[in-house]
């Protein structure tokens, strides 16, 4: 198998890395996330206009760069290295994914809005009692004439404070954890009846609790098939997992490199602590975790477009990435000693991002159970 990147993909990586090097160093990032609004719209504008990367996975007919999962992977890894908080995952990967795969009538216009930098999506799927189960939904959409009335509470909607539109998974029929009876809707964030409670998350990102009270949705709000939206949700979430694994690779590389660098210059007992065999072996174990995470990420992104292979590939990758985020993140702080506990050093910020990624879209245990279910065809 040929794992080399094309010339265009290498150029994409270099362009993104160069922009982030100039505009997204650690001090600038730290300053931006510690005050309102928690992100930089001018950076998003540059992504749209200067770099054109918001069109990365969209066809050229729609105004995009004609790329796919590998282009998303390249962008997300660079974003991980710089701890970028701007909502590429929610908007380009997830919003774009729902629009591309559903045949939604307004898809071309909304994708145009994404590429221009005007339309920003956040995925409102998780609920307080959901426990990573995409079908555990108490948010309801009741049929109302040609449209629906939406009621419910979505928890920890990452990027909702920056979004113009929410993608909402809701129950249109059936029992609270049934696989059937689920539909997907696009809801404008400023629609009547939508309220949000915004807050920062530990990794410098922003999220909201989103409450829907008798929100009126027109017939055109539906994305994908009514009552049978779960397959579409699973497909897009697997794409989001593959992209998140790529972001994790960037974070993991920085955790490892930062630890190597620190231990080489930190002296104790008269010598650099990198000369101690225990720490050398630990950094080798960290390195092995990083390499395995990168390999699993390549595998997931290569297989994510194949509906027969996608789910197992995404869950397998998420297991490895989850374990790597825990091992590499925790050991990075350990090897930095007391300095690792400070807010001034970048290492703690990478560690907190890795800790959030560890359980994003499902913990290690959740994805092991899913992999078992997919392999053996019965509940774990």
């Amino acid at each position, binding site marked *: 198998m040929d794992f080399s990147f094309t010339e265009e993909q290498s150029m994409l990586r270099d362009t993104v890395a160069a922009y982030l090097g100039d505009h997204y160093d650690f001090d600038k990032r730290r300053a931006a996330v510690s*005050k309102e609004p928690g992100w930089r719209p001018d950076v998003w504008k540059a992504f749209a206009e200067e770099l054109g990367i918001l069109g990365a996975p969209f066809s050229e007919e729609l105004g995009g760069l004609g790329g796919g999962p590998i282009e998303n992977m390249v962008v997300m890894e660079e974003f991980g290295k710089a701890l970028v908080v701007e909502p590429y995952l929610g908007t380009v990967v997830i919003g774009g994914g729902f629009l591309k795969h559903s045949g939604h009538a307004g898809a071309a216009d909304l994708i145009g809005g994404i590429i221009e930098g005007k339309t920003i999506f956040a995925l409102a799927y998780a609920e307080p009692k959901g426990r990573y189960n995409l079908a555990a939904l108490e948010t309801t959409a009741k049929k109302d004439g040609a449209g629906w009335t939406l009621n419910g509470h979505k928890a920890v909607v990452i990027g909702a404070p920056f979004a113009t539109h929410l993608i909402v998974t809701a129950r249109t029929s059936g029992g609270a954890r049934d696989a059937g009876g689920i539909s997907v809707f696009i809801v404008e964030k400023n629609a009547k009846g939508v309220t949000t409670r915004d807050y920062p998350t530990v990794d410098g990102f922003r999220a909201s609790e989103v409450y829907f009270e008798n929100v009126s949705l027109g017939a055109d709000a539906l994305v994908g098939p009514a009552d049978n939206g779960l397959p579409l949700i699973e497909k897009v979430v697997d794409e989001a997992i593959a992209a998140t694994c790529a972001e994790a690779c960037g974070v993991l590389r920085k955790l490892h490199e930062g630890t190597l660098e620190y231990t080489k210059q930190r002296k104790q007992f008269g010598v650099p602590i990198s000369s101690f065999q225990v720490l050398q072996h630990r950094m080798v174990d960290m390195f092995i975790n990083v390499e395995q995470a990168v390999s699993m990420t390549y595998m997931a992104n290569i297989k994510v477009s194949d509906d027969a292979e996608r789910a197992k590939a995404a869950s397998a990758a998420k297991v490895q990435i989850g374990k790597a985020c825990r091992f590499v993140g925790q050991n990075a702080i350990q090897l930095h000693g007391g300095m690792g506990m400070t807010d001034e050093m970048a290492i703690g910020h990478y560690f907190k991002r890795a800790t959030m990624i560890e359980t994003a879209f499902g913990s290690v245990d959740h994805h092991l159970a899913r992999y078992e279910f997919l392999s053996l065809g019965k509940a774990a």
Partner: protein
Amino acid sequence: RDLSGSNLTVGPDYADGLAGEMFNGRKTSIYGGSNEIQRNIIAKMVLGL
């Protein structure tokens, strides 16, 4: 508006402050003599290595 600290919470009451405790607890294997140093001491003093 100060966004640092634990005065912004979300989720069930029993989870209040847990994230802060989890991250603050990271120090326990470092301070007062790191785990690696403790292993050195045990190797020398207990195992005679």
